[in-house]
């Protein structure tokens, strides 16, 4: 009975991993690709680790599996956010059907508030790294 539960959990994990890979292959631009990769990869590994902790039924293995799952659930969104922010200001090409760019609107509003930095609306320089704060941002 335990074996069947382990099989089902493991197959769930494999299906999620495969869907993440297919999404990585088919999505049109970096941000959507990042969405597909991060969510499904984390959930796939989570299911596999759950299967391992059910299979071994040992306190140490359960602790290590939960450690993997907790660490991935904590760090995968942070890593995705950091790489997406770095890529947005690189800039990478965005999808041509993209309807709403909230970050661009926010940067434009900031540029209206401080008209001395008129170049801020161009993607290519992150706010806070232009002008006088460049040396400070290098740290």
């Amino acid at each position: 009975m335990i074996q069947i539960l382990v099989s089902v959990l493991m197959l769930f994990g494999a299906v999620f991993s495969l869907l993440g890979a297919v999404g990585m292959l088919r999505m049109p631009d970096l941000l959507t690709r990042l969405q597909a990769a991060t969510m499904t990869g984390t959930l796939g590994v989570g299911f596999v680790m759950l299967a391992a902790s059910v299979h071994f039924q040992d306190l140490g293995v359960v602790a290590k599996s939960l450690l993997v799952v907790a660490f991935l659930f904590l760090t995968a969104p942070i890593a995705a956010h950091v790489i997406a922010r770095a890529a947005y200001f690189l800039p990478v090409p965005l999808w041509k059907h993209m309807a709403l760019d909230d970050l661009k609107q926010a940067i434009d509003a900031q540029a209206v508030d401080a008209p001395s930095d008129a170049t801020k609306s161009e993607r290519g320089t992150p706010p806070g790294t232009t002008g006088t704060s460049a040396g400070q941002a290098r740290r």
Partner: protein
Amino acid sequence: MADEILQWSLIATAVMMTIAIVIVTFCLLRGPTLPDRVVALDLIGTLTAGAIGVYAISQNEPVYILVSVMLAVVLFVGTVAFAYYVQRGLER
């Protein structure tokens, strides 16, 4: 009976994980930009951690779970370091 189901699902899981890693390796080679490759490398590492978990179940050897733990830790540091250097590169 239940053991046979476990054996077959282990084979199926290993095949699916391998196909997933091959697809993501193709995405890593295809690019087209540097952050795309970073994301693909991150996903390869995550899938490898899952595949090592499957291998631990198939070998009935719980020590291999520790490899997954270490891989998950190193992966996060690697991705953030890549993002840091991507962002620092554009300040130059």
